[in-house]
């Protein structure tokens, strides 16, 4: 068998594809984070916990209410979104004029509390969520066995990412949102309810995290700590892409997924670190991130 940089081309293709699949997860998660930071200036450390709660919502729905995967895909983000609305209204709004650090600490505390509650209720080992029948099985691509469910994840992620980007960058609603961030008083003077818009944006952002959680549920074990192991990587993605840049989050998410996947083949020991190496290099060369606006 011919070899390419030490491994067979089949394995290389397979790794790139797997990297893209993981990247799709990073993209959806960092998208919500970028939206929340870009429009609300909140560093939402509870994003990983919301992802976990989204996954648990789908599991609980299936276990106790007989709600299937497809319904969960809509319902879990709605439930978590409503939780988000409440958190924004009762907690985050009180500190919106304070330094970033306040919202960071508040959301970090919330994440720890949520994880603690779920550990207490369900233990750490996690729960199993079956792959929906329609997406079970896999396709033999010749160079690898592609599980249909993973293909679906990529498709769903791409559609969601594009829709959100379009909504924020190309519609009137998005323009209001962006304007509200720039100058809240002025936009309010035009008769637009900016506090409500901020409230809905936060709910929408964490709803995206929950959506990623539902997508993840059939792949990974649904466990209380599933969010904390991924959140740091997702933050790095947002920083590399440019804080608050929606397009940056999407492209960086996919790109870093591939880089991480390839590192796992060539030097697996640094696969957790490689993203931060990239982050350090990017920050040195472009402090605002790849797609951030240089101020």
């Amino acid at each position: 068998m011919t070899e390419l940089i030490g491994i067979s081309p089949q394995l290389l293709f397979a790794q790139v594809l797997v990297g893209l699949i993981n990247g799709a997860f990073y993209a959806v998660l960092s998208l919500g984070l970028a939206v929340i930071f870009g429009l609300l200036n909140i560093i939402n450390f509870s994003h990983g916990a919301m992802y976990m709660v989204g996954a648990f919502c789908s599991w609980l729905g299936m276990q106790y209410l007989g709600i299937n995967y497809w319904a969960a895909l809509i319902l879990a983000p709605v439930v978590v979104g409503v939780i988000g609305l409440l958190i924004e209204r009762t907690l985050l709004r009180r500190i919106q004029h304070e330094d970033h650090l306040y919202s960071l600490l508040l959301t970090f505390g919330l994440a720890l509390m949520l994880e603690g509650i779920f550990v207490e209720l369900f233990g750490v080992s996690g729960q199993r969520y079956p792959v929906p029948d329609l997406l079970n099985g896999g396709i033999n691509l010749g160079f690898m066995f592609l599980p249909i469910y993973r293909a679906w994840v990529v498709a769903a992620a791409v559609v969601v990412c594009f829709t959100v980007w379009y909504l924020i960058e190309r519609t009137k609603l998005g323009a209001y949102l962006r304007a509200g961030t720039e100058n809240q008083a002025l936009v309010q003077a035009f008769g637009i309810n900016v506090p409500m818009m901020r409230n809905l944006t936060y709910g929408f952002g964490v709803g995206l995290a929950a959506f990623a959680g539902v997508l993840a549920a059939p792949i990974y074990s649904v466990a209380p700590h599933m969010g904390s192991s991924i959140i740091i990587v997702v933050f790095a993605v947002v920083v590399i892409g440019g804080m608050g840049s929606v397009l940056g989050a999407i492209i960086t998410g996919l790109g870093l997924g591939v880089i991480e996947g390839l590192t796992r083949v060539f030097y697996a020991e640094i696969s957790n670190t490689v993203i931060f190496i990239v982050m350090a290099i990017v920050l040195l060369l472009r402090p605002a991130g790849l797609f951030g606006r240089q101020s």
Partner: protein
Amino acid sequence: MKALRTACAITAMTLGSTAMAADISDDKVKVGVLTDMSAVYSDISGEGNVVAARMAIEDFGGKVAGKPIELIYADHQNKADIAANKARQWVDDEEVDVIADLVTTSVALAVNQVADREGKEVITLISGAASTPITNEQCIATGIHWTYDTYALANGTGRAVVEQGGDTWYFLTADYAFGDSLQSQVSRVVKENGGEVLGASRHPLETSDFSSYVLQAQASGAKIIGLANAGGDTINAILAANEFGIVQGGQKLAGLLMFITDIDALGLEVAQDLYLTTGFYWDMDEKTRAWSERFFERHGAMPSMVQAGVYSSLMHYFEAIEKAGTDETFAVREQMGKMPVEDFFSRNGRIREDGRMVHDMYLAQVKSPDESTRKWDYYNIVSTIPAEEAFQPLSQSKCELVNN
């Protein structure tokens, strides 16, 4: 009047203690359970260990040699420094006599150093930690390793799998001391039995996506993919292998350290047919069932081998105090070594001078969903590995307490 009452009390106490000849320091025996209460190992250890310790104390009658037994516990968060500090506080200020569980190898080794300070020695009953240095290079005179270790796991699962034709291996290994230790010990067993190791991928601890690693293992063409990791890593690796059609493609998985709680998290659909080595299974006979049902009523889950081990080790400790008539550390340790360990948990058990409690281990295979009649009905015990074969022979020990 008051003086008279005091005098009477003193006389009574003196008479009482003379009658029993008991020499219990500070008039109580204090048990400390130091464990992981909320992180990755809290399902196999954690709250369940506190329940097991409480059951042991109650079953022993709440008193040993006429003195009350007290229980305290703390969360070490799997951090060696936190564990060592807590242990020091317990021994120096709170008169703790014995420390139980100590899940995570780094924690067990750190606490053993605290337990081995001259003049302040206490007994450690290690149930949750896995690595062999505990009874080799870093053994201490008062440390007892109760439930299992990486040697026994490697020996049990590794040999059984090779004997059944699984002679080429690829490892997915957690990149830290435990993973290394397990991989090297299983590799040795595989080679000794005529097998071959084709390669390994070392993944960071707490990896959620194993698809890259699973594809590498698939490409290696090895018959067996050995999972030298634990907890959430093992679970996610098995899920990925299942998803990417590894088992359907003819390769088999061998979980090298798996607990019953992991099988419960995976579900039998995914976990069926896996081989694993365990020191205890709740559904083996009347005695294991009786104890485990009682544990289940209190804890809401069947006991892991670590939790059953905590109970068993504490009962043996209490019996030794009762027999020796003192809770003096070395006297108790000596007495514990003299008595065989035979209870619902341990068959043919005895404590060696290196601190290893050797007992029968079991090779189990996970049942299929059709075979299982109820929740927690997960294992078929395939064979018993006799105590003397299951663990590292004393002749290979690197412990300085052993005269080799």
